[in-house]
């Protein structure tokens, strides 16, 4: 499973700030706030997600509000979540309520960051860009900024309680997090909040748990990495080693594999096509050091700045795509050094994507039979309990996608059947994986679209991996009834590829 690759930190469930609750002591002042005030904008984003049950439609739009931070170059930094699936973004000045629209210049859902640019550059004239504070330590104090309804800035002082690698919300990628203990209260528009110290940006708050009064901040190294990549001609993103590992604490395991070195983690999975696999890393290797940093039995190293943290911080944040890191490994009694060229994940090769944002889900309708490609957002339409509630065959395809044979491609499936005279008897079929259409192997919706152009003996023959095994449609009849179907179900188009 891909989501466990590249980090071993404990995951936790955070509440988004819309669920903020609790009491707040009176705000304390911070000498940097005056500067902050000149760098903060309210960001109102209208978002609209696609409906994966009816992939030709969008769900009802909704609004998210947060605070953007002006940074160098007339750009505004926010969390990616704030603007995910946006249809319209509006900037609003604190206090004056002056408004201007904005566009997304760069978004990366893995690190949950986005850069906005005002459509009217003059809108931010007179404001002061904020700099990034890179020297955060456990025990430091930081102020989280919120906006009152009247435009005044509300401040909550918090203490940094830990700095560790943890899961980021949209892709569950393990990146450095700063955890802040701060007693905040529910205020309108808290989807992104800056945390500042002495007028410098210390992180962006991306989730808050009211019960424990803990906030998770996107950490300065992650923001710096994102901004560096965003400044390049080609955005490279965050590299991944493409490895899953387990600890080597068990002395019986260490003795059995003959490992006398004090540390090291046991590689349990190597993602096919990933940086680690290309460099020759194998299942069963023990990683002793990365880029000269000794790895302990739990997969941590001693970072000069942040103390004992997971080594994935080296691979995904400290290094950039294209860099080479030397992995010192223990394999079958020998010590080897493998140079690993770090690369970001090639998202086009993913079988079932963990998120599909800012773009429409693909589909093909044949006669009334709706075909889609498997993605996690489709399964998540079943709600929070989707792992158990969604069609299990598809859940397992998503969960074990890394174990599929090379070149399996996308999982194309019949998501539903729109009843019509051509689909008589098929009305109750849904969530069936397609193996072949008209004798051709199906590895993507494009394959299916192509295969459908070649009916056999006048029939579209759709072969399925499970019962009923095969469906037939009258190729001529579905062409004749095409417009009727479009009209009856208000389909904007019979396919979107």
């Amino acid at each position, binding site marked *: 499973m891909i989501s466990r690759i590249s980090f071993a930190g404990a995951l936790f469930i955070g509440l988004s700030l819309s669920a903020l609750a609790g009491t707040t002591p009176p705000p304390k002042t911070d000498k940097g706030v005056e500067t902050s005030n000149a760098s903060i904008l309210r960001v109102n984003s209208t978002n609209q997600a696609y409906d994966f049950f009816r992939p030709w439609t969008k769900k009802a739009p909704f609004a998210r509000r947060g605070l953007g931070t002006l940074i160098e170059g007339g750009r505004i930094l926010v969390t990616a979540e704030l603007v995910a699936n946006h249809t319209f973004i509006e900037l609003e000045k604190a206090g004056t309520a002056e408004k201007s629209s904005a566009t997304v210049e760069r978004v990366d859902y893995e690190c949950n960051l986005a850069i906005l640019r005002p459509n009217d550059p003059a809108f931010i004239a007179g404001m002061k860009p904020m700099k990034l504070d890179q020297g955060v330590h456990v025990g430091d104090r930081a102020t989280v900024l919120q906006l009152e309804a009247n435009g005044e800035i509300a401040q909550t002082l918090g203490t940094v309680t830990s700095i560790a690698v943890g899961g980021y919300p949209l892709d569950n990628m393990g990146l450095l997090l700063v955890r802040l203990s701060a007693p905040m209260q529910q205020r309108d528009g808290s989807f992104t909040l800056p945390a500042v110290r002495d007028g410098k940006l210390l992180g962006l708050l991306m989730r808050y748990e009211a019960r424990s009064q803990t906030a998770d901040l996107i950490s300065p190294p992650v923001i710096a990495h994102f901004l560096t990549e965003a400044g390049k001609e080609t955005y490279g993103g965050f590299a991944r080693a493409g490895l899953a590992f387990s*600890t080597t604490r068990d002395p019986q395991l260490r003795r059995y594999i003959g490992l006398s070195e004090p540390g090291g983690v046991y590689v349990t*999975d190597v993602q096919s096509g990933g940086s680690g696999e290309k460099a020759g890393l194998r299942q069963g290797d023990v990683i002793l050091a990365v880029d000269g940093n000794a790895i302990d039995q739990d997969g941590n190293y001693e970072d000069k700045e942040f103390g004992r943290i997971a080594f994935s911080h080296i691979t995904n944040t400290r290094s950039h795509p294209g860099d080479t890191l030397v992995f010192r490994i223990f394999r079958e009694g020998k010590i080897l050094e493998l140079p690993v060229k770090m690369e970001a994940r090639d998202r086009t090769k993913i079988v079932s994507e963990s998120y599909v944002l800012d773009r429409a889900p693909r589909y093909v309708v044949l006669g009334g039979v709706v075909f889609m490609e498997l993605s996690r957002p489709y399964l998540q339409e079943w709600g929070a309990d989707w792992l158990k509630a969604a069609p299990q065959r598809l859940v*397992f395809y998503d*969960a074990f996608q890394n174990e599929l044979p090379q070149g399996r491609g996308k999982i194309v499936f019949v998501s539903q059947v729109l009843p019509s005279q051509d689909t008589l008897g098929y009305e109750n079929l849904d969530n069936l994986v397609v193996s072949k259409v008209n004798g051709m192997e199906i590895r993507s919706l494009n394959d299916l679209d192509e295969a459908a152009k070649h009916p056999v003996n006048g029939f579209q023959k759709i072969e399925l991996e499970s019962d009923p095994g*095969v469906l037939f449609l009258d190729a001529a009849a579905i062409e004749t009834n095409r417009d009727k179907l479009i009209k009856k179900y208000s389909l904007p188009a019979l396919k979107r590829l």
Partner: protein
Amino acid sequence: MFRYFLIAAAAMGIAQASPVARSLVRIEATSQDPDYKAPWNPGEVSGGVGAGFIISGNRIMTNAHVVSNGKFLTVSKEGDPKPRQAHVVFIAHDCDLALLSVDEPGFFKGTTALELGGIPAIESVVSVYGYPIGGSRLSVTQGIVSRIDFQTYTHSGMDSHLTIQIDAAINPGNSGGPVMQGGKVVGVAFQGYSGDVAQNVGYMIPTPVIRRFLKDIEDGHYDRYVDLALSYQPLFNPAARKALGLEDDDRGVLVGSVYGGGSSDGIVKPGDVLTAIDGLPISSDATISMDNDSVPLAEVVERKFKGDQVSLDIVRDGKPMKLKIPLSDPWPFNLHSNVYDEDPRFVVFGGLIFQPADQNFMTAHQPDDLRLRYLFDFFIEDKIYKDHPEIVVLSGVLADPINVYANEFRYTVVDEINGTKIKRLADVAAEFAKPADYYVIKMAGTVRPIVLERKAVEAARQRILSRYAVTKEQNL
């Protein structure tokens, strides 16, 4: 979702004479349900009440679920306050029927054996006898036959047979009681819906199922139902019919899957169209006409026995063919069926508990592990049984210094021990019985093994057994 209940319940008392009363018994069962979480424990003792009735040969018929996991049974006749000890002679969990005997001579004196009738007509009136909640004496309710159909028998959870739905009130405690019409038994009351799901929906086991059970045991042994072990779908779609070379005559069903090891394996192929079974034409909705009624085509097989044959008319690649299927037990993988009267199987080694994942195990543990759920759910469809006739799971860790690092592997499936593929629980015991310095246990889906040192396991053995009060180290 529908919620079923099985209608056995605690109730007490004896009722006054009615003609049927001379044939009715009240059954009190003390049962002990196994503990799948601490499988060496004998399990919790509980009691229940159900009904039964006397049939020919001094036998008492009741539901299997009234006497399942029974440790001690008593029966009391109407009007005779003394409970007598009874024994299960035959029990059929797949159709929820059982026969009891009573040792005490003279018990059946003065009783009347009930006779079996046929299938009652829709809308005809039937009477239900039993000891349902709401009082302690014999209760009679009356209703009409609402529907005749196939239903899942919730006792096994996997089998479906012909079932008659009636609108007479059937409540917990009615289980095993006779449903009468014209002085004959037309069914055994056995399950219903709880009132928050549906009202006046009760089910009885009809006489074809009862007769089949009685015939099956004539040789002194209950063999279970036989099954075609294939899946089929209705064939309504005109394009599908044309493409398969069928006429537009509303006949035939399409075979989707043929299960490995089952009766049809190697004879029927996916994509075949079944047009007749034992000469009875199959409609495109998978029904046949039998006894002047339309019933699912499976009813033909339902009435047959192990070793019997069934003939199928099929269309394969547009050509009509005739096939003969020798019927056998349902394919030997009744993994998804609830199991009764068996002690849980397990192996404890080094504080690690290994158990085969069957329906009872899954119900007790409700594991979230996706791989385990996949292997269990798709055991038949994806032919998991080929590599894993039993899915052996590390179901728990009795924490001890030697195994604390194994906890993260809870509910994962054992793939290999010391390089040997684990196909059954017995393989686990066999590997641990071999002398080795290390026992290297590899779980499915991960390469990082659990390693136990023999010396450490031996040193910890008594400590673990006594600390966790493990009375038995294995039950294979």
